[in-house]
């Protein structure tokens, strides 16, 4: 840490100042001139929290995408369709059984099974032909999107969160001072979003641990680095491929349930989340889980702040970030050359 600071004194100084400003903005009671400059603190904190939680959702979608890409060099453009499918399955299960939590394993297993099917039936036949695999995923996404439209219609579905998760939760972040009594006003935030964000952090940490601390993770990392060498050492690479595809697809399915609770699911959401995960992994770096987390956080926060502070071009802002990252780091922030 100290060595890093000594090596880049200016960069360290800029980062320290930025962190200090951010901490001030989050914890301090805003003086009047600041409120006059950028609006009320409640709006700012809400945008920040919404951004972070949205980043959690983006991470869930993008981590599967980046995992599949990193190992198999397969850009799965049907990933958004898997997300949407997971959402619909989750809705069906939650409505049918009445248990919200039950929707997650079902979506994970069903969508993961479809992922295995895709890997075994389609992609194994065209191994090493990256472009053709990508084209096939485009075809699959067109077909899946139309089948889902056929099956579920064009309506919006919203998965209802259970009663113990609904309603706001009082946090310890101060938004202001009550003028009449002088009491502090604390931020209220929807509990379900906080729980979902915590869950995505747990998923991220679990994935990191699995990749870096277990035998399977070792196999996967070895496959990412040199696929041919790994299969030459006798590892059953096809099994690893199928497993990773199942995991990535299953994560997309879970993300669909989360997205259906967070927002809603409808035709067109597949493209939206496909694009979001594309941008996230381009910004964060292809094939890197940590990069996906960083990218998801950046894009989620940028999207929310954009929609609050300059609503017209909020969508364009995320692409602008992507272009900037590409211009200076073509492999993404944490991508390896």
């Amino acid at each position, binding site marked *: 840490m100290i060595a890093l600071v000594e090596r880049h004194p200016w960069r360290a100084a800029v980062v320290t100042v930025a962190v200090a400003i951010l901490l001030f903005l989050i914890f301090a009671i805003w003086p009047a001139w600041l409120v006059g400059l950028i609006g009320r603190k409640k709006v700012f904190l809400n945008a920040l929290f919404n951004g972070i939680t949205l980043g959690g959702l983006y991470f869930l979608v993008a981590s599967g995408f980046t995992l599949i890409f990193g190992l198999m*060099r397969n*850009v799965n453009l049907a990933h958004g369709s898997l997300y949407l499918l997971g959402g619909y399955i989750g809705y069906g299960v939650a409505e049918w059984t009445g248990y919200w939590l039950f929707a997650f394993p079902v979506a994970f297993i069903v969508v993961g099974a479809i992922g295995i099917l895709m890997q075994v039936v*389609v992609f194994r*036949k065209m191994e090493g*032909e*990256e*472009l*053709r695999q*990508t*084209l*096939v995923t*485009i*075809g*699959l996404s*067109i*077909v899946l*999107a*139309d*089948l889902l439209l*056929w099956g579920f219609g064009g309506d919006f579905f919203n998965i209802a969160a259970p009663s113990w998760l609904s309603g706001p939760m009082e946090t310890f972040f101060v938004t202001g001072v009550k003028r009449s009594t002088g009491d502090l006003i604390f931020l209220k935030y929807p509990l379900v979003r906080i729980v979902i964000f915590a869950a995505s952090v747990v998923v991220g940490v679990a994935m990191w641990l699995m990749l870096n601390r277990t035998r399977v993770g070792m196999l996967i990392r070895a496959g990412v680095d040199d696929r041919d060498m790994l299969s030459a050492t006798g590892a059953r690479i096809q099994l690893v491929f199928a497993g990773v595809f199942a995991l990535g697809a299953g994560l997309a399915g879970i993300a669909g349930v989360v997205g259906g609770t967070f927002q809603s699911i409808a035709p067109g959401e597949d*493209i939206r989340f496909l*694009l979001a995960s*594309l*941008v996230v992994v*381009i910004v964060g770096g*292809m094939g890197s889980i940590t990069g996906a987390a960083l990218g998801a956080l950046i894009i989620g926060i940028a999207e929310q702040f954009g929609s609050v502070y300059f609503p*017209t*071009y909020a*969508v*364009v802002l995320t*692409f*602008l970030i*992507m*272009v900037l990252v*590409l*211009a200076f780091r*073509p492999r993404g922030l944490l991508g390896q050359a």
Partner: protein
Amino acid sequence: MASIADTAAAPSWYARIPLAWWITGLVLLFMPAFAGEFVLYQIFGWTFILGMIALSLMFLAGYGGMVSLAQMSIAGFAGYMVAIFGDSAITDISQGWPWYVTIPLALVLAVLFATVTGWLAVRTEGIYTIMITLAIASAFFYFTRQNYTIFNGFSGFNGVLPPQLFGVDWRHPVAFYYLTLFWAAFWFLATLYVSRAPMGLALQGVRDNPRRMAALGYNVTAHRVAAYAVAALPAGIGGILLTWQSAQISPGTAGIGPAIDILVIAVIGGLRHPAGAFIGAFVYVILKTFALDILVVLGFDGERFNLLVGLGFLAVVFWSSDGILGLWSRWRTSWGRDRLRFPGRRTP
């Protein structure tokens, strides 16, 4: 006798063109004599336009190895520029400049846009390029949808009409047919020419082995960016013609769906030869126009058009890496093979 010897040594240029090309050309040239206005305007006009845009993708992907999903955005950009600088029903924004200013200006700006796109996209390779151009295409879509001062937001521009040049109404089916046919043929031949010109050959070299080309002293990045710039011209002209055909341009014209459609067209047709782009466009237009009837005949709901296209696309990609052209050449080699001399699946 001397003439026979001469032709045997080097056949004249028209003798080297296969008979099928002559027939296709003549049929297309005399099409208005026997085809109705709907066929001329909707089917063939649209085929040529989509074919030109797919041709620009075919040029990049087939010769340059760069699959760009941004070609539809470049086409849409050129169409927007014509609407903005020329005439449209949105008189607040449209400048109303004459055609001989707006059309070159639109093309120049489209080339600039494509150059910037290419400059960003060539930093990446292979599948990364698809993703980055897809992201650029969607950025363009969202930007045009949100921007009201220049691009007139969600509704876009309507009433964008071609100029009344030489006293001809260029939106009349026959005139429009010949206009699109001319440009399609022009860009088809131009692409064939460029593919054998030094620049096209260097581009194919860059596709096959960038490191070796770099070692030979070619500037790999410059060739790739130049390919994007060149490919912007057929796409831009296609975009302008598309705008004139429907007399309007809106964000949906260059949305994510149409961008992927162009890729579908180019891949269905085949990325190896410029003809593939037009074959793919023809198949796509026929499907899009008649899918409703086909589906109803088969007993399905007419709305399942995308399912049909998606399954057809999957089938083509799954069985042939080179689209209809690839299937055709494979079928021809297997058909023309002497089974006694070359048994088995191997082609001689």
